[in-house]
């Protein structure tokens, strides 16, 4: 069973390893002659005003909330899709999933209608 996770482990290893490796490489072989311009967040852009740690617009939170709900829906669709290989329950499973998604579509339509997806 654990052997089945070896590709996942490799992916994690390469993902983290690549980031760490390139950062260390540039740290050790790069030349460091800092000037105030070079140290600014955008070397050839607009001068930053204030800090980046500002109070964000509340709308982001709602988008995250909606994302989380549809994220949950994805989890249900995932197990449904894996169980779908069993031929004996396919028709029944399809009907069940249509019911499931229809119920959630009602919610989606409601959220849309109420303007929760609109950026104002």
């Amino acid at each position, binding site marked *: 069973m654990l052997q089945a996770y070896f590709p996942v482990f490799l992916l994690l290893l390469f993902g983290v390893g690549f980031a760490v490796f390139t950062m260390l490489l540039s740290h050790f072989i790069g030349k460091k002659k800092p000037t105030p311009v070079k140290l600014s967040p955008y070397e050839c852009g607009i001068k930053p005003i204030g800090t980046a740690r500002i109070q964000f617009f509340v709308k982001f*939170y709602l988008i995250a909330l909606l994302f989380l709900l549809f994220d*949950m829906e994805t*989890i249900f669709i995932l197990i449904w899709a894996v169980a779908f290989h069993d031929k004996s329950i396919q028709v029944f499973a399809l009907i069940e999933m249509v019911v499931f998604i229809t119920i959630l579509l009602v919610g989606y339509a409601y959220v849309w209608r109420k303007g929760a997806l609109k950026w104002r």
Partner: protein
Amino acid sequence: MGNVVFAIIFYALVVMVLVSAVAAAFLRNIVMAAFALFFTLLGMAGFYVLLGADFLAITQVVVYVGGILILLLFGVLLTHRSIETLELETRGTYVLGIFGGLLVYGVLHYFLFSVSWPTPLMKPLEPTTAAIGQLLLSKYLLPFEVSSVTLLIALIGAAYLVRRRDT
């Protein structure tokens, strides 16, 4: 050989979860605490994998690491910066925190020793996702559909939160 690998992964995860959990609890910078929590939650997913609960591991990554943590970070970014610099730690918060932690531990302790655990740990474990899916489509059909209604209620609740005040 297999047991040694298992033990190495297990203890590496233990260190990762404990260190990051302590960091999440004690770091002063709330954004850094949220990032520490990321490693705690990811480590828990690793434990689920070790225990052969593959579906639980996927759910942990998708919902907790990918969803709830994002929500938490957004919540942090929405708060005003002055909250971070406030002295939030008093003796009262420590006492409350320890009391809450002990309460949660008490519940976990009770279930740890009152529930019988049918699967021996070292047995080769089978993937569980397909079996859970089949049970969900047969024996637990009603909970499956009820869960969609629960999500619907949450969606309507979210829409209600952002309703126009004038309508």
